């Protein structure tokens, strides 16, 4: 471990004291933030040359961002346990026998969730909830099942204090799936985030419309293109955290992101960006990720000691890593301006063509980068269109069109997106607030989902512009909680603070309503 200066130690001590005294943080949030500060003092990774100048910069020049993973990763960023195995076999470490009825199944899951680590210290994946619960659903009468599942979901919202927590349903309709949608429509809470896997052959219109109805009330579920994910990741995939497609029984070691707009600022012109600046930054980021992964696998001991690995709820060789990016739109616009070419991302074919060319370069780079611990995805990382963080200013999420510049017609918006979703097996997505009148015609959204998935879009979210629960970038917040936080009152979910940042810096309350 390398030495650090006393000045850095003292600055960190001051930061810790500020956390202790904060009026806006709950006790749990303080503990997590203090741990992150302590971790920041470690220097154990063998960092690639040139990283510091790209990583440790303010947001208007930073080119690589490691998204708060800390200096000594003690666990993978995203962990996706095999909950089906747990409910079938129980868990020795937790001294739990297999559950026999719905009461036990739900209680077992709630216990298990408290032992699933992640970058947030809360489980980013809570299971394919409908499939997990369906075998137990007839062990009680329907009224009891509904009451139990409602309590289960409520318990999650009030104890998983971070809305980067995700449960999946679909593509097939199930009794458990229907009950989940019913209770979520009533609860209207932010946690867990939910995705419905949609397949035109397997999902019924009736069930999908029920999901849409729920989304119009509480901004979830979102809809994932099941066929597309199955083609890339097989049937054994999940949607976790924001909208991240990941292998089941595994997860992602790490996620770093390229800030493409700032890389474009370094370039003299398009040619320089494509041939020099972008490849240079990608190479350093990939090697930084390699080193983080090496530490997790070879030094942290996580995969040797944690009960999830020891009992086979996760498998080291089912982990991959996410090669993220933000600001494709920003990069395209900056580069066109440097070249004196007219056109903006989302509004011109020249801009979209450049966007596709940049994505092809990134995709080719990733396909040629080898990491020995990513066997599950062919020893390559998976591309990820990152949704942004609260501190982002003038950084457009993933490959989205900037808020305020959305094309007038939704069809034009969707056709732009259809060029970019295909690059991101580990997640991308777009969000559409819809007018209240759509409540009277949920088939409107059903048709858009069907058309979009036929056109290679991957992931879509809708919410009603007048709902309290809304989607920030990939996660959910309650507007009523943002208002409390804006008055410096502590609120239960740490993601509300991120949402407040995003509403101030990212203008997420100003999206074009469809």
């Amino acid at each position, binding site marked *: 471990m390398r030495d650090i200066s006393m000045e850095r130690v003292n600055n960190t001590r001051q930061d810790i004291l500020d956390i202790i005294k904060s009026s806006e943080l709950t006790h749990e949030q303080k503990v997590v933030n203090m741990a992150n500060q302590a971790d920041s003092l470690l220097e154990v990774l063998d960092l690639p040359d040139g990283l510091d100048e790209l990583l440790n910069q303010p947001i208007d020049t930073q080119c690589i961002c490691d998204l708060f993973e800390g200096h000594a990763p003690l666990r993978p960023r995203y962990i996706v346990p095999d909950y089906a195995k747990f409910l079938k076999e129980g868990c020795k470490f937790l001294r739990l026998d297999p559950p026999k009825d719905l009461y036990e199944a739900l209680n077992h899951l709630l216990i298990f969730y408290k032992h699933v680590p992640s970058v947030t210290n809360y489980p980013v994946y809570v299971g394919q909830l409908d499939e997990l619960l369906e075998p137990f659903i007839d062990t009680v009468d329907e009224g009891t099942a509904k009451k139990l599942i409602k309590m289960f979901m409520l318990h999650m919202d009030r104890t998983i204090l971070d809305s980067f927590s995700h449960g999946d349903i679909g593509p097939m309709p199930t009794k458990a799936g229907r009950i989940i949608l019913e209770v979520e429509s009533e609860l209207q809470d932010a946690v867990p985030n939910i995705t419905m896997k949609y397949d035109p052959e397997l999902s019924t219109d009736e069930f999908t419309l029920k999901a849409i109805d729920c989304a119009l009330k509480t901004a979830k579920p979102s809809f994932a293109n099941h066929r597309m994910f199955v083609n890339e990741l097989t049937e054994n995939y999940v949607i976790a955290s924001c909208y991240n497609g990941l292998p089941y029984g595994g997860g992602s070691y790490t996620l770093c992101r390229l800030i493409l707009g700032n890389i474009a600022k370094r370039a003299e012109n398009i040619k320089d960006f494509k041939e020099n600046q972008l490849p240079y930054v990608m190479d350093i980021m990939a090697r930084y990720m390699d080193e983080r992964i090496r530490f997790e696998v070879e030094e942290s001991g996580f995969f040797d000691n944690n009960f999830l690995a020891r009992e086979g709820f996760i498998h080291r060789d089912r982990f991959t890593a996410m090669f993220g990016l933000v600001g494709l739109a920003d990069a395209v616009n900056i580069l066109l301006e440097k070249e004196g070419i007219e056109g903006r991302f989302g509004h011109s074919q020249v801009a979209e063509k450049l966007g596709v060319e940049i994505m092809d370069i990134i995709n080719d780079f990733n396909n040629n980068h080898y990491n020995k611990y990513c066997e599950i995805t062919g020893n390559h990382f998976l591309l990820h269109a990152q949704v942004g963080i609260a501190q982002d200013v003038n950084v457009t999420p993933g490959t989205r069109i900037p808020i305020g510049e959305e094309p007038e017609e*939704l069809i034009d918006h969707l056709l732009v997106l259809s060029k970019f979703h295909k690059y991101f097996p580990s997640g991308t997505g777009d969000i559409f607030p819809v007018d209240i009148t759509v409540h009277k*015609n949920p088939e*409107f959204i059903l048709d*858009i989902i069907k*058309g979009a998935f036929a056109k290679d879009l991957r992931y879509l979210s809708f919410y009603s512009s007048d709902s309290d629960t809304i989607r920030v970038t990939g996660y959910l917040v309650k507007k009523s909680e943002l208002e409390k936080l804006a008055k410096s009152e502590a609120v239960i979910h740490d993601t509300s603070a991120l949402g407040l940042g995003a509403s101030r810096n990212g203008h997420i309350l100003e999206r074009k309503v469809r």
Partner: protein
Amino acid sequence: MEVVVNKIIPFSSVDGPGNRTAIFLQGCNINCKYCHNPETRGMCQKCGVCVDKCPQNALEKRITATGEIEIVFKKELCVGCDTCIHVCPHDSSPRTSVMDEKMVFDEVKKQMPFIRGITVSGGECMLQPDFMTELFKLAKEANLSTMIDSNGTIDFSEKPELLAVTDSVMLDIKAFDCNDHHRITGANNDIVIKNAVFLAETGKLFEVRIVVVPDLYDAEQSVNDIANLLAPYNAQNNIRIKLISYRPMGVREEYKNLKVPDAKYMQKLSQILYNQGFSDVLVV
């Protein structure tokens, strides 16, 4: 065959079930006091009043080679302020296009596969039955459903060719009482009522639209009468009834101060329909 198209809305959530491309034809045969898009009523007379008033200079009056006057609309300069339609003395718009069914369908195709069908509205689209027949044939070939949104003053039973390619109709019944109807629209409603029954009998009546304007007529009586008229058919083919609260948006100045019905009154009207066995009642 060519018609004047007021506008095409690529994705519409309010012109029939699901997502549809809605085509609004120019020209109407009645004059509803509460018309919320009066600029679709008349044909452009090329008077040029709008040209000078446009704050963006997006309109230009030109003489063609054959000596005809034309009003040229430069879409790229338009900011959508709607000054042109507000100053038009003919309830028209300079932003219309002359299009045939192929041109219209080319615009529709851009939305596939995101839409399940098309709806033609107006103005009064039934003034152009031949155009619609041709357009609907193209839509049917592409597996799109076809709907008509009409004020009901033109007899559908006389248009069998059109109906053969029409999946269903959304029909306005502006008032059940003929005198009320005449007062609101300037036209009698005997054909409207005949159409309602004919379309209900033939299973083509998807939706009846009732605009509720308490200042203009007794909507409660009208809803009662409509429910009595259509209840016998509702059993076989579920008919949607859409109760639309009058709102002043888009309405001409002289009618803008009509009273907006309150939610309680709308609720009362929908209850009348529920009591008569209508299960698909929308209040908007």
